[in-house]
């Protein structure tokens, strides 16, 4: 008595040509990730006082490499993966093919955007880090490239909406299949959330870098950045949630408990967009009351996260018990740990629990005063985006790349080695970063070059960062070898479909649950909330002071 989360459960395959664009979009993400983690290694060693970045070809300063690391890993890789993976899942969920023209447009847009941004970073004219706070002023291809990378996600959402509209025409009165619902909700949410960064780049920074504005308004630019900079973390996370809800239950031979709970989780993320001010707790110019209000709203994020923890753990438990596990936690050891896709993603979930706890600490503004901009922060987010997301993406790749290539995975064993190396690595890394942060060690700092004596607590912390970071790098390297060998030398095989889950409590075709699919109303609520939180503050900034001159000494 269980219901598949897709339409056309008997089988559906995308046209070959669409599969190819999806494949290359995702591979673009993996290629930039490879460059990104290489810089990660040099940053981790820097904190251990080993300075190797001057030997990197094309990278002259620590901050140039750090810009590449942040932009490639956190923006380009995650967006490229989402564009490819979510489009695939929505098409599969609906059992409907995508629009090929839009798919191609999205691919070429993100490709050109990536090349422009990467070119600017490598040329040394854009060492402004992935937050590019004005008045640090990068060369125009950096901003133009970023704008295109964001636009590629809008093009992808257009594709999803067109495909959904077609499904609704052909299946009047049917619920949106859960797998597709998650993907569409993710992109709707992101279309709203990305407005801040889009306005910042297109209206202010890009024209400014071309000489059309005389200066920048750092306060307004920062605020627009963090309007998007907070919810961007959901855009990193939600494609991975689609796997945790939509695939993992199947991969562990379990089942998803409830259809509607998943929809509610995605809607909660859609609604809790405007909390970016929690990244500005210690900024001047932002009224205190607003900071406190946002702090309380931020804690509401606890709810969808715990709902996810419950649903996913329950699915794992069903699978573990079916495999003969018993007792309070005995089932946990019976899930298929030998499957690298499951292993990587379950380890990623464990890291996410630690990430969630450290996230609560960041959000507690009293704690934030001690750790803002210390290494505590990268300690936290390498558990979340750096592992919960990145390691899950690696885990997904272990079935996705074989599916896209119709080839066997080159080595499951190597995949397991990679996952464990990365996971143990990040635990050591984060331990170092977090303790260093509590001892006042600043992030975004070429620690191997500081002119003052290190305060107590920094030395050990830095060594742990270096050791853990090197292990993460080694794990990532093994991952790239597995993927490259699968693509180049994998044995041909037939993989008919993707591993989608089933739900125990199926979607109802009547009653309150129907309102979950009326996305228009939820969009309205989300937009109103954004206007209520951000409107008065932004209005108070007028007339804008575009008079702070650009700064290019980097």
């Amino acid at each position: 008595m269980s219901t598949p989360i897709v339409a056309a459960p008997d089988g559906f395959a995308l046209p070959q040509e669409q599969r190819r664009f999806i494949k290359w979009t995702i591979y673009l993400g993996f290629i930039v990730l490879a460059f990104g983690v290489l810089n990660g290694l040099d940053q981790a060693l820097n904190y251990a006082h080993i300075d190797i970045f001057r030997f990197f070809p094309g990278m002259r300063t620590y901050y140039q490499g750090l810009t590449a690391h942040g932009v490639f890993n956190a923006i380009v890789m995650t967006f490229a993966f989402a564009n490819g993976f979510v489009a695939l899942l929505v098409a599969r969920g609906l059992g409907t093919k995508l629009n090929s023209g839009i798919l191609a447009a999205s691919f070429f847009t993100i490709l050109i955007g990536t090349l422009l941004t990467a070119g600017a970073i490598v040329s040394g004219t854009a060492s402004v880090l992935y937050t590019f706070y004005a008045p640090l002023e990068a060369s125009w291809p950096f901003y133009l490239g970023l704008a295109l990378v964001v636009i590629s996600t809008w093009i992808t959402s257009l594709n999803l909406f067109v495909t959904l509209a077609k499904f609704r025409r052909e299946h009047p009165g049917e619920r949106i299949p859960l797998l597709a619902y998650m993907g569409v909700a993710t992109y709707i949410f992101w279309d709203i959330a990305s407005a801040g960064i889009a306005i910042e780049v297109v209206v202010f920074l890009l024209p400014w870098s071309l000489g059309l504005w005389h200066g920048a308004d750092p306060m307004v630019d920062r605020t627009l950045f963090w309007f998007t900079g907070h919810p961007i973390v959901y855009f990193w996370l939600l494609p991975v949630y689609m796997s945790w809800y939509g695939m993992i239950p199947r991969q562990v031979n379990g089942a998803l408990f409830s259809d509607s709970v998943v929809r509610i989780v995605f809607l909660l993320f859609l609604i809790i967009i405007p909390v970016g001010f929690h990244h500005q707790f210690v900024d001047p110019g932002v009224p205190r009351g607003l900071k406190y209000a946002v702090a309380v709203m931020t804690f509401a994020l606890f709810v969808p996260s715990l709902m996810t923890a419950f649903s996913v753990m329950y699915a794992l438990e069903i699978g573990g018990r079916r495999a003969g596990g018993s007792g309070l936690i005995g089932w946990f050891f019976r899930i298929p740990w030998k499957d690298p896709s499951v292993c990587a993603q379950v380890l990623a979930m464990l890291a996410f629990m630690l990430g969630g706890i450290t996230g609560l600490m960041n959000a507690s503004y009293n704690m934030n005063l001690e750790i803002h901009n210390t290494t505590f922060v990268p300690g936290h987010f390498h558990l979340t985006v750096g592992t919960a997301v990145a390691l899950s993406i690696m885990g997904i790749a272990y079935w996705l790349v074989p599916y896209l290539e119709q080839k066997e995975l080159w080595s499951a064993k190597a995949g397991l080695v990679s996952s464990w190396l990365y996971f143990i690595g990040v635990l050591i890394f984060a331990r170092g970063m977090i303790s260093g942060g509590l001892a006042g060690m600043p992030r975004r700092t070429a620690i191997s070059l500081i002119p003052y004596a290190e305060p107590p607590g920094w030395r050990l912390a830095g060594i742990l960062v270096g050791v853990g970071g090197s292990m993460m790098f080694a794990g990532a390297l093994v991952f790239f070898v597995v993927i490259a060998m699968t693509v180049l030398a994998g044995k041909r095989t037939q993989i008919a479909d993707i591993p989608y889950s089933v739900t125990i409590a199926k979607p109802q075709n009547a009653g309150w649950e129907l309102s979950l699919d009326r996305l228009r109303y939820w969009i309205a609520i989300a937009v109103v909330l954004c206007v209520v939180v951000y409107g008065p503050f932004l209005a108070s900034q007028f007339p804008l002071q575009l008079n702070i001159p650009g700064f290019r000494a980097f």
Partner: protein
Amino acid sequence: MNHEAERYERFFLIISGVFLVGFLLVLAYTSVHMRVMLPGRVGTIEANPGESLAAAVFRTPPFNHLGVTKVGPDEYQAVYFAQAWAFFPREIDLPVGARVKFIATSVDVTHGFFIAGTRVNMMLLPGQISEETYTFRKPGKYLLLCHEYCGLLHHTMHAWVIVK
């Protein structure tokens, strides 16, 4: 199974709710009782047409008088400006037990103002005034750091607070 799972889920959500409320209560306690406060809106500095931001800062009180001033018994005010890649003043002396209001701004890019091991942690934005108050209870040589990336020599940007 269905029923059982629903019961577990409700239980789980109730526990989560209790935790959530507990966290918020602790936050409220530290704010009200321990007076841990976030910085708020203080003021802005605007350059006149043709004037540099640095010039505007130096004619705006209290930045026309940098450094430490005693403003009451055990109460001090420490006025700073930040410029890539240094703080001014570079070193200040304070007695143990001093309650100090740090007032700072930047004349070029975004800088950080962080005294390692304390709650003095703020961002300095060009054109905005930042303020935070802290009581030094222990003697020592405190490291004042720029903890926001501000260009090529960001990692060299520091100053000292000596508490005797």
